């Protein structure tokens, strides 16, 4: 009998329960976004009226637009800055490198609430009005490290001989980067960018501290609704958020698996 052959039944049962626990609540939530009954968790027939209802809500539409804009802008900035940092770490030797590497992990392990309030204190001290700009600044600050980690993993697996060949054949460093390094690195950059997009699009806690009164992103709108009452429209928005993040995550998986 080979070692990998079979796992004990008890273990399989525990794993099945855990998978159910992880996914059933979300599946139920999505299913009931199509439920005709307003109040009960009883199934009263299929409807898309909660989605129609969302279209009439200006705060939801505005929140969705704002979340998309903030996520797009902060993703571009973190992807660009993060890729440069990853290149420096993977391809250059310099003093203070261990300190830089350790520092990059600080945002990953700092509790979100600490990030949120410390940024609020900074903005208050500088007298910066809270709004789209402060949200973007915050989102880049917490997603940058994740981009660095993903891009660096890609760089570590890349063959440097093509770059060396280009340099030997007389291309300067910028040309080599544009024509040789970047095309190879692209999947890593895109994957890192997509993850930064999800982090930004989903963030509630940090955003809640640095958003102004007129700039509620979609998670802030959803939180407000979830605190007040539980109505099927929240199931509908949740479903939309899930579809967006799952699609982005699937893309990231596809891109990283190529080659």
């Amino acid at each position, binding site marked *: 009998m*080979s*070692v*990998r052959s079979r*796992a004990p039944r008890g*273990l399989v049962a*525990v*794993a099945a329960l*855990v*998978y159910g*626990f*992880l*996914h059933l*609540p*979300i599946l139920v*939530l999505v299913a*009931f976004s199509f439920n005709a009954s307003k109040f009960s968790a*009883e199934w009263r027939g299929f409807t898309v009226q909660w989605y129609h209802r969302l279209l009439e809500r200006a705060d939801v539409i505005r929140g969705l637009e704002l979340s998309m804009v903030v996520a797009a802008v902060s993703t571009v900035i973190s992807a*660009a*800055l993060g890729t440069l*940092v990853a*290149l420096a770490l993977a391809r*250059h030797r310099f*003093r203070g490198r261990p300190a*830089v590497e350790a*520092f*990059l992990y600080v*945002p990953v*392990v*700092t*509790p*979100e*609430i*600490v*990030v949120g*309030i410390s*940024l609020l*204190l*900074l903005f*208050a001290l500088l007298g910066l009005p809270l709004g789209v700009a402060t949200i973007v*600044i915050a989102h*880049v*600050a917490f997603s*940058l490290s994740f981009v660095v980690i993903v891009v660096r993993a890609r760089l570590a697996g890349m063959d440097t001989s093509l770059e060396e060949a280009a340099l030997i054949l007389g291309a*300067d*460093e*910028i040309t080599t980067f544009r024509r040789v390094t970047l095309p190879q690195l692209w999947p890593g950059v895109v994957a890192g960018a997509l993850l930064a997009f999800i982090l930004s699009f*989903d963030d*509630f*806690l940090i955003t809640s*501290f640095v958003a102004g009164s007129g700039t509620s992103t979609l*998670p802030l709108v959803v*939180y407000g609704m*979830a605190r007040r009452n*539980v109505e099927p429209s929240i199931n509908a928005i*949740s479903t939309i*958020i*899930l579809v967006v*993040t799952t699609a982005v*995550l699937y893309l990231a*998986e596809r891109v990283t698996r190529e080659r």
Partner: protein
Amino acid sequence: MSGPRRRLLAWLQRRPAARAWSLLGPGMLWLVLFFLVPLLIMAAYSLMPRGTYGGVQPGFTLQHYRRFFDPLYLAILQRTLVWSLVCTAVCLLLGYPVAYLVARAGRWRAALLFLVVLPFWTSFLVRTFAMIFLLRDSGLVNNVLLRLGLIDAPLTLLYTPFAVLLGLVYGFLPFMILPIYASLEKLDPTLLEAAETLGATPLAGFRRITLPLSLPGVVAGCFLVFIPAMGSFLTSDLLGGAKQLMIGNLIQNQFAAARNWPFGSAASFVVTALVLVAVTVYLRVRDRAAEGTG
């Protein structure tokens, strides 16, 4: 090629450190300005007297830290620590078997792994709301139990310690499974084959080989669960109601309703310090484990 560009490149060629820092510069500047400096401001605020309308006054005081020893706040700190530890333990008990099975799942591995990664990246807010939807008085759980005749009146599930713990485990379980899976996946199966050939039972093989070699993943997973659990706000806020405050809620309240920024900063600094201690312990343990396995 243009002159200035060639001259710049030639200059950079002679200075490798300048080359590295020209790449690092923008990103590091962003992190220093918008991550490190804010943390320092927070530390400074926690040592200053409270201003009249939020904010602080010039001066130095330890009163905000002293205030933490008030039984009311100590109880919140204790609750946060205990719940985070219980949550970590439950996640480990549930997560290890899953990671173990996924690592040996053969051709189902990629699909099963994706099913763990998916909740990892799913909006925490949406997942917490899913719990509300199940647990509230007119929620699905009560509905099903009533229909089956197991209960006569809805059980109070929401706004209880049970709901908060369930929400914490539900929220952070993927953070435990992924690192354990990563360490089990690297495990060389020939080691287990050798053990079996030499007469070890599967259980002995697991205890003497698999478990020790997966310890780095276990330790990493425990910290990845414990740290965000310590700083959690949403779970206790939405599932716990007003009676189940955790430190995260206390901090948020100082910045929202109470307008006591320095006390909020002090509470926040306590959380950061606890996390730093946890990370230091983790790095020690990891390095020792790395020495041990060579």
